[in-house]
């Protein structure tokens, strides 16, 4: 702080000077606004382009062949590596899937996430259908949508079956859309 011009006194600003000062104030304000807002938006935009964080492309073991019976879908919890923000969990619960042993011995897997709005679907033993508890969508044992608001059938997951174990590639898909689009 200078004390040199403490005594200097000026006449009150007149027209052109007033306009100049107003422009100066506006420009400085705009500069501050842009310099503040730009980094803020870049910082906040991170979730828009964050990389896929879980499951990756690994096929994760979820059951053994002995666990499966024809006509009795099996709900399995999928465990796998998870990157969640700053946290890394090597053995995290990623989600659930339904395993279906077909009559021809083939194993199919469906994500337990309802394609409508993301609730977890249950197996209705009596009706022999997968039912969503939230909005009552129903799905056949092969995943086809039978009734309700779901825009598509259950999302099938890739299965790698061997004599020893059954592995699936777990993925999540966009809900509430006709197309089956992987998320992330």
């Amino acid at each position: 702080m200078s004390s040199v011009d403490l005594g200097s006194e000026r006449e009150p600003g007149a027209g052109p000077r007033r306009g100049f000062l107003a422009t100066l104030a506006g420009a400085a304000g705009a500069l501050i606004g842009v310099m503040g807002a730009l980094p803020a938006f870049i910082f906040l935009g991170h979730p828009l382009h964050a990389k896929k964080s879980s499951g990756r492309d690994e096929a994760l073991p979820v059951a053994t062949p002995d666990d499966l019976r024809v006509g009795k879908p099996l709900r399995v919890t999928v465990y796998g590596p998870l990157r969640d923000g700053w946290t890394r969990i090597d053995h995290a619960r990623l989600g659930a899937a339904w395993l279906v042993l077909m009559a021809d011995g083939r194993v199919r897997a469906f994500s337990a996430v309802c394609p409508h709005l993301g609730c977890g679907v249950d197996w209705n033993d009596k009706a022999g259908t997968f039912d969503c508890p939230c909005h009552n969508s129903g799905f056949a044992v092969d995943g086809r949508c039978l009734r309700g608001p779901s825009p598509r059938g259950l999302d099938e997951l890739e299965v790698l079956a061997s004599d020893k174990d059954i592995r699936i590639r777990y993925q999540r898909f966009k809900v509430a859309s006709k197309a089956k689009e992987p998320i992330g």
Partner: protein
Amino acid sequence: MADHRAVTGKARGVARLSMWLDRRTGYSTLVKLIVDEPIPGGARWWYVFGAILTFLLGSQFLTGVLLSTAYAPSASTAWASTVFIQDTLPLGWFIRGLHSFGSSAMLVLAGIHLFQVLIFGAYKAPREITWLAGLAMLGLLLAFALTGYALPWDEKGYWAKQVETGIVGTIPLVGPLAQRLLQGGASYGNYTVTTFCAIHTALLPSLIVVLLVLHILLVRKHGVTPRWGIDEAALARRTETYWPHQASRDTTACGLVFVVLGLIVIKTHGADLEGPVDPSGSFLARPDWYALPLYQLRRYFEGSLELIGTLVIPGIGALVLAGLPWLDSAEGRDPRRRKTVMAGAMAGLLGLGVLSYLPLRHDRADPSFKKARAEAGDRARRARQLARDGVPPEGGMAVFRNDPRFHSRELWNEHCANCHSFTGEGGKEAPDLKGYNGRAWIEGFLRDPQGRLFMGTANLEKGMKPVLGTKEELHALTELVYAQTGAADADRSLVIAAESLFSQKDCDSCHDRDGTGQNTGPNLRGRGTLPYLVDVITDAGDARLFGKRNKMPSFANKLSPEEIGELAQFVLLESSSP
């Protein structure tokens, strides 16, 4: 405002909207009140400090909100999420840097503002409450800085807070209680971080907003304090309105401060971030710059006198400042007539300067301080590097588990260290493996297999007997065993010479060297190689190894093949490190 030029249709729409809004809210009165604030004597550059401080407070609010979108307050997540902000989020280092340096800038500018008020005598009647509100805000700024320092939960924040809450605990009567409340219990943990976070992000912002509004309203009520010695009539003659005269100075000054702040942040790549907290470790804790005078002051008072440095002197200082409007009995605001206050202010400034400089000089001259700082820096760099792969849920120190060797060491500690060692002093129930693949270890073993460093502690039934022979013979046999490791520097001629010795000395009655033979002693083929160690760890009781006499547990069912491989690798690395 009342500029009635021809307006376009769009502008007319805006005007109509603002009129509509004004009829319902009366906002234009408020705007007029701010914009047309009369400044007696005219706008001046030395009035900008309050505006800069308000602007910086706004910047702290904005950056604080941004940081809080990614910061997770708990003992296990605070450091991890701060590293995430600093090293992963786009411009996270910049936002965090603005927030951190912004807090320092606020303290500096608050100091300048305070000094200006002292020189102008602006604390005098009728502005006592304005003065007190300002002082209280300075106190809040310090509280902001002190609590914010803890939030990253890195080494420096953690240890500095240990000291400060410790000081709180020494206050007579209320100290222990206050300390416990502040740190959320008897010792540091999750509740400490959430408490500091709540104080920093909810309590203090609420308080400072209330005080700031009060402060600004009072400034408006009494007007800015013009320079002393100008009579009322002269001031009134030169009155200017806030807009645009003072506003242009304020915004220009704010813009300048912002640019300088941004440049400092870019130059330093943001604020420091030390390694995660290790409560079992130690750290040369130093407070941030603004608390250095207090740190130094405490040094002069030992034992029961400590309170004089930590509480009494700072307390008296604060009370004198608060009581200044009443203590200063001089007529008028002319600093030349307030010599005591001016001298006191200068002495205070000088004192703070000296008390800040002394600890810096002391540390600079201390080589052990330099070394400790360098070590802490290395720890921080390594931890932050490892944190790029994510921090395990346990948080903080668990990041070192991302280091492959760290994991192996854990396996070793859990499964091997109860019997083996790498100390060179002997294991508890099995060989010490320091230098396991070196000639010295092998020769020592041949000379005294049942020695303390070798199989002595394992105490096997019918163990190997010492190999008796000349120095040269033992050298040769050592080289023969040494060559099994695949070492490139094995002496071929010695190995060939040892071939006959191997049966002469009866070694071959127990040891085969073909990799398949199941003799009473271990088959020596590939001894000391990675596959050999894998075999030993998997099942040392295999007929090719120690067979029935084996005492070492089999790890085939305890560890995965990957873990066994990792351990074998670890043994090779660790045994050969000096």
